[in-house]
């Protein structure tokens, strides 16, 4: 029997309200999937940061562009995709917010937080040509975690996907 994977996809406007909407939607899914309060917080925050990234850096706050949010719920994990319609970026080019010279920067911590809060994180090229953030969190009781892609990923690779 093939394990069931649930898939949800939504297209969001490039506006601040989409950040709250995406967070709220994924929080509900995470709660329904059985994640505890702390993990829901981390998932919600990561979705929020992913959509902020798409809104601000990817789509440059241009209202004619869209943000594409998708969630796959497999028997093992919750996988979240956030794609923008910008020009893409490489993880290796993102400055380290923990570096002494960046500590007083007023931006640039979103990617760091997503990496810290999720089990797997990567950025790939989206079908739209922009960047697609792919991140996942193992479901409670789904077994031991796989190797974490945090900090080693780059454009063109993605977290292991379930069949």
């Amino acid at each position: 029997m093939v394990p069931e994977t649930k898939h949800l996809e939504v297209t969001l406007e490039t506006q601040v309200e989409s950040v709250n909407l995406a967070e709220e939607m994924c929080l509900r899914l995470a709660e329904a999937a059985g994640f505890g309060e702390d993990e829901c917080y981390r998932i919600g925050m990561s979705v929020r940061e992913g959509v902020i990234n798409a809104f601000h850096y990817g789509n440059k706050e241009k209202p004619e562009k869209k943000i594409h949010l998708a969630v796959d719920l497999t028997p093992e994990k919750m996988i979240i995709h956030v794609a923008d319609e910008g020009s893409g970026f490489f993880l290796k080019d993102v400055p380290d917010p923990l570096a002494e010279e960046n500590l007083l920067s007023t931006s640039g911590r979103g990617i760091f937080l997503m990496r810290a809060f999720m089990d797997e994180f990567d950025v790939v090229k989206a079908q739209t040509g922009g960047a697609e953030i792919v991140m996942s969190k193992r479901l409670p009781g789904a077994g031991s975690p796989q190797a974490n892609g945090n900090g080693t990923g780059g454009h063109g690779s993605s977290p292991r996907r379930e069949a």
Partner: protein
Amino acid sequence: MALHLTPRDSGSITVVDASGRITLGDGSANLRKTIRQLVEESHCKIVLNLADVDYIDSSGIGELVSAYTAVRSKGGELKLLHLTKKVHDLLQITKLFTVFEVFSDEPSAIGSFR
């Protein structure tokens, strides 16, 4: 939940009681406006009471850093009071504990100003 900020004077120190979320949009903008106004009015010794703030995103963190540098540029100081666990953890993993002075009781925060 919107961010509410209520400044009050404690001698030469201004304590700003915050409640709600400091996030992209109104929350961050409200914090920026309040701190700028205080700085313009030469209230440059500020304690930001975050007891009722249980959520800050990267935009809110950026706004806290911006407030810190704005106050410092006028020769003042911005200190943080009563962090909730989530905010505490957030400042810890972003290494901002090495930047901000953080207090768990108000008299100590107020007494720390020179």
